[in-house]
């Protein structure tokens, strides 16, 4: 009923190949975007922005990035935390070296530098596969974090080794620093997510993405049909690292404002991103976003319910949070190993036929 396809005729290839072929989906997408851009900024407050929406948007970018590498190209990476750090520190160096430079360019510069670093660490992927590649990227994680901790130039020789983001404005509104309004930072991050999501979606369904998927499904077969594995893997590492770097730069400049590399970009961040894409769904842009939403919002939601609504002690609530989220992850992976995106796909199939399933 809801997902009616009858009467929705496609008369051209572009119409048939579009991202949302069903009208209802398309409408829902545009309405969500319109609400996100034109309604939410008027109602957003500091708590919603800084505790829920901004982390979700930023982790969404990072999850799309990791999904391109792991979900689309099949290269497991445990180095995302380190790559985020590259983005963050590049952004910091740019911000402090060029105080007049627009923050957006600093963030993009973070992405580009991370892409280069990512390609460097991606080179071994031509020889090493699977678990062994995971170990190489793990080395990248530890090396990068160690380097940012060790070399004082990266943190401008500050006494504590922390980097703090100075205030930067855009169109007269502060985006980073203490005076940033929640609406401005939210719109800033949302724009990045929408643009990068759009780019990611179109990369993955174009020839580049098809090459990635061919490599993922069987690299020898892909090579035989003419896919250059060097280019495919390198582009996947480059694009993925660009996304992750942008996310790292935003975490530092917009979201946290002050960052200490071991704590903010440690190995647990790499695992968090990996959880996001596994729970959300490998090889799906939508899945990346759902996964990010799950991992960011669930703890906050549970905390608010248990501590504020039930009035439980904070430590008991924190322990329950671990149990519940762990349990939910196991539950979702048993019910649907292909992630929440696949679950959503099945629901859509059912809704298409509902209420007459036969």
């Amino acid at each position, binding site marked *: 009923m809801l997902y009616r396809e009858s009467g929705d005729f496609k008369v051209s290839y572009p119409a048939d190949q579009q991202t949302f072929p069903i009208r209802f989906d398309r409408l829902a997408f545009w309405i969500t975007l319109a609400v996100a851009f034109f309604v939410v900024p008027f109602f957003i407050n500091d708590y919603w922005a800084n505790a829920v929406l901004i982390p979700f948007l930023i982790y969404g970018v990072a999850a799309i990035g990791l999904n391109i590498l792991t979900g689309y190209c099949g290269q497991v990476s445990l180095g995302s935390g380190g790559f985020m750090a590259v983005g963050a520190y590049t952004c910091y160096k740019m911000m402090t070296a060029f105080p007049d430079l627009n923050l957006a360019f600093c963030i993009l510069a973070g992405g580009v530098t991370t892409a280069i670093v990512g390609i460097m660490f991606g080179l071994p992927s031509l020889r090493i596969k699977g678990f062994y590649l995971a170990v190489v990227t793990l080395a990248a994680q530890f090396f990068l974090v160690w380097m940012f901790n060790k070399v004082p130039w990266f943190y401008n020789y500050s006494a504590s080794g922390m980097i703090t983001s100075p205030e930067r404005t855009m169109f007269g509104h502060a985006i980073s*620093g203490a005076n940033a309004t929640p609406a401005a930072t939210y719109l800033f991050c949302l724009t990045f997510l929408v643009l990068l999501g759009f780019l990611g979606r179109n990369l993955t369904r174009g020839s580049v993405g098809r090459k990635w998927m061919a490599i993922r499904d069987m690299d020898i077969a892909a090579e035989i049909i003419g896919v250059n594995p060097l280019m495919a893997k390198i582009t996947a590492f480059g694009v993925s690292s660009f996304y992750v770097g942008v996310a790292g730069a935003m975490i530092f400049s917009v979201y946290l404002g002050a960052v*200490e590399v071991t*704590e903010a970009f440690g190995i647990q961040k790499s695992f968090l991103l990996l959880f996001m894409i596994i729970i959300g769904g490998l090889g799906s842009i939508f899945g990346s976003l759902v996964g990010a939403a799950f991992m960011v919002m669930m703890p906050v939601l549970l905390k608010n319910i248990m501590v504020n609504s039930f009035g439980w002690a904070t430590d008991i609530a924190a*322990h329950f949070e671990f149990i519940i989220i762990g349990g939910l992850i196991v539950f979702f992976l048993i019910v649907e190993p292909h992630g929440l995106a696949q679950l959503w796909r099945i629901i859509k199939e059912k809704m298409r036929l509902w209420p007459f399933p036969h």
Partner: protein
Amino acid sequence: MNIKRMMMATAVAVSVATPALAELVIPSLVYRTGAYGPNGIPYADGYADYFALLNERDGGIGGEMVNLIECETAYNTEKGVECFEATKDLGSLVYQPLSTGITYQLIPKATAADIPILSMGYGRTSAANGKVFSHIFNFPGNYWSAASAVINHILDQENGDIKGKKIALVYHNSAYGKEPIRTLEELAKKHGFDLSLLPVDHPGQEQKSQWLQLRREKPDYITMWGWGVMNQVAIQEAANIRFPMEKFIGVWWSGSENDVIPAGMKADGYKALAMHNTGMDYPLYDDLKKYLYDTGKASGEHAGTVLYSRGMYAGMLAAEGIKTAQKMTGKSNITAGDLRDGFEALEMTEEKMASIGMPNFGPSFKVSCESHGGPMVTAIQQWDAKNKTWSLITPFSPGDMDVINRLIAEDSAAYAAENNLSERCG
């Protein structure tokens, strides 16, 4: 549509949670879970119990009940931000996050929100310069005065000459652990000792290589900036290489019962800095026992331990700040801005501490607009493993103020330049 449902449920949960107004709201960013939980719990208990006592015994502060809102951070900066955002609009008066990382993050945010931060003996050392950091207070001591106090103690032990001596710093590889390095380097230049630095990565369970290196280098003294399990492991490792404990000096965050008890008798003689006294020999404990422990309102499980005392001391300083602000404004229901002014006018005297029931508990000092760092005096405490007690072995004395003040001026000037701040205090 999962997301939307979640958002709605969160919105409901948030809106339900708004507490009643017209009381003194004090957020308590605690960590009772995670790698540093064992150290976070006694501190959080001490902090909570002090305010609970004021509520039970005096009906709050100046007639206003204290509403303590706990928020679990697990020593994690992202959760710290979430806690800050969740509590800052509830009329929160002061933040004491007990984490250098979270403090760094809150410095600009709290300043913009006009809420003071009291980072007692942690956080950004140069915040002691009130001319630059308007809302941040770090009395009575900070990392740089602590570093200097360690060196001063070593000077005392060596009769004033430590030229050519080897001193090693074992530190938590984070903002917190790195803070003393610059001061120690300056002091090394001044006194001519060799400084070697040994970082230990979070959480600090794995220190074999560092202690192997220490065994090879044979330093004359070891000082430590550790937290959580790192302290216990380090003290155990020091015992394993038979390093003389009285030459092993930890910062005040590396000197609690949690850290020394696991090593048993081998930890006997271990030294640590102290910014306040400890133990149960204070009249305040009679009240705590009468109003809280005996009535079951608090467990008192950690009462008298170093970190419980520190939490209590933190609560006491905040409460005294509130009292000062109430006196200054003449109203009992003060705002966070009033409390900031109150902290700036805070004066801790012997008589005041005695009247609270904590005579000689900490140093007496006076805060001013220029100096948010207090007296920066530190004592040395030593562990007696037989009786399981810490006792102060030196009086509270100041560090090398020339060096510290110079470094504070440098670092705060850098912060002011980075953030386009002009100096306050006329």
